[in-house]
């Protein structure tokens, strides 16, 4: 595996085909660092809300199961608007940039240190060939609300070449979050393994 440096990033930005890197919109070239790419906080948010349910269930077979989206409220902002992240609040956001990763490159996305030091921690991984605005889970670890500005460089991505092409878009099984342009709630309940695990549990208890 190889960490992509600036020259390689810029080469792939200007190329086409399976090895091309796409970032749309790339508002400033200065977002490309020596080994990182700064990404901006997007305009769409899913804010977690309190409900009467004691917990979020991922088992669709549960009598009291409610869709995951019912635990979140969508809201939009414009470029330059402020967004307050409250302590211990989960907010699903996305990047302004629509990413098109090469078939042979994956990305680690973290919060930039300026924001990590404010208590906003992000750490996620993006599969090779990914297409979409990156959904990120914002969580405020400190005891003070933190103000974020829509459009500011909150995240940074490190790109790694895996040395071979993968089958993100053309594989037989479609990805859960492909082509997303706004944050999406968890689709954990759609995991086929959960059905199998539920059957195992029921067999064990019968």
């Amino acid at each position, binding site marked *: 595996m190889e960490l992509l440096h600036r020259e390689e990033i810029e080469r792939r930005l200007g190329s086409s085909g399976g090895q091309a890197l796409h970032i749309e919109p790339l508002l400033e070239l200065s977002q490309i660092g020596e080994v990182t790419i700064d990404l901006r906080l997007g305009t769409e948010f899913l804010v977690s809300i309190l409900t009467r349910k004691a917990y979020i269930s991922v088992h669709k077979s549960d009598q009291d199961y409610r869709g995951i989206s019912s635990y979140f409220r969508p809201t939009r902002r*414009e470029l330059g608007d402020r967004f307050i992240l409250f302590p211990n609040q989960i907010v699903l956001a996305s990047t302004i940039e*629509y990413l098109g990763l090469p078939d042979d490159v994956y990305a680690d996305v973290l919060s930039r240190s300026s924001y990590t030091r404010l208590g906003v921690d992000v750490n996620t991984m993006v599969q090779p060939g990914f297409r979409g*605005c990156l959904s990120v889970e914002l969580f405020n670890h400190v005891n003070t609300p933190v103000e974020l500005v829509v459009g500011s460089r909150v995240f940074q991505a490190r790109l790694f070449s895996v040395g071979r092409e993968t089958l993100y878009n053309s594989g037989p099984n479609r990805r859960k979050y492909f082509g997303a342009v706004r944050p999406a709630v968890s689709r954990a309940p759609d995991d086929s393994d959960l059905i199998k695990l539920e059957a195992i549990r029921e067999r064990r208890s019968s």
Partner: protein
Amino acid sequence: MRPRIDLHLVRENLRQLDETTYFSEKLHTFTKKLIGAIDHVLAVPSRYSDDVVRVFADVARISQTYLAGSTTKEAPYEMEYCLRAAIPRWTGRETLITTALTSGQDFHLLPIDPWNFVATAVSGYQVGAYSPLLVLIGVPRIYRHKPIYCIPLYHELGHFIDETLGVIRYSLFVNPPPPGYDHEVVQSHRQEFFADLFAACYCGHASIRTLQTIAPHNPATPTHPATADRARVVEEFLGGIQNDIVDHFQSCLAALGAPNLMPLYSLPSIAQSYDDMRPFTLTSREHLHGIFESSWNYLSETLDGRPSSWAIPSLSDGDIERVVNDLTEKSIRNMSIKERWDSGITP
């Protein structure tokens, strides 16, 4: 209800709206100035007659309703951006747009102009040159992230421009309905033909394909011409074929000193980007409006089995529709973001 009490109630609602943090700066200004006008009217009870206060209360109440629709923070900003790009050609008035997500299936575009009234009837309150129109867009909630399905908004914009310029009123004046024809039916039909042609100026064939999808075999009714007739007029207009209805509207627009109807779009070649599941980079107003027809065609073709890297056989029609609408929304969104970014002041 006494008119002044109505005005008090409207003012209280406007004050609450003004305290929201969700308004844009322009909407805050609009709200503050409207509150100022109401304060002025209510300050001295005898200053304006009950008739003036009654009409002003009505105008202010409608304005407040439209403003309230903008606080949901779920609005389809992309459609607002497209309509805002179209309006300046037809009216020099600044236009503020708010959006309400509706539970029904209808689209609407409703204007209100409190400043003309204030400048004329509440002349003690100085508005100066401030005179933006306030327009409420109504979009069905299920379509809020479906720009391709919001093409009817261009048709509604056509009605708004017609009302603003008085196109069909002028049409009826210079070309009255023949004897035996119902005046209201003729008026309604002409309004629909005009709005269809207006939409076609921006969305091309997609404007009439939308109608043919919603109401493929509709006969003429008192309010709307037959779908087949509407489609024929638009197709002839776009095809450059002479059509009496189009010619008549063009002469009305010329007489009113307004721009003529003409294609104001060009079709962006989105296939390469969309096939790679990426948004298209829009760089012109013509392409901005043209993306609706391009996306409509791309969606139709993909649903009919057009191959692409992502439209694998296991994908449902719903997934295909979602991807194409999302790519279209993001294409428009990116253009608006870049425009805002480039217009920002660099420190």
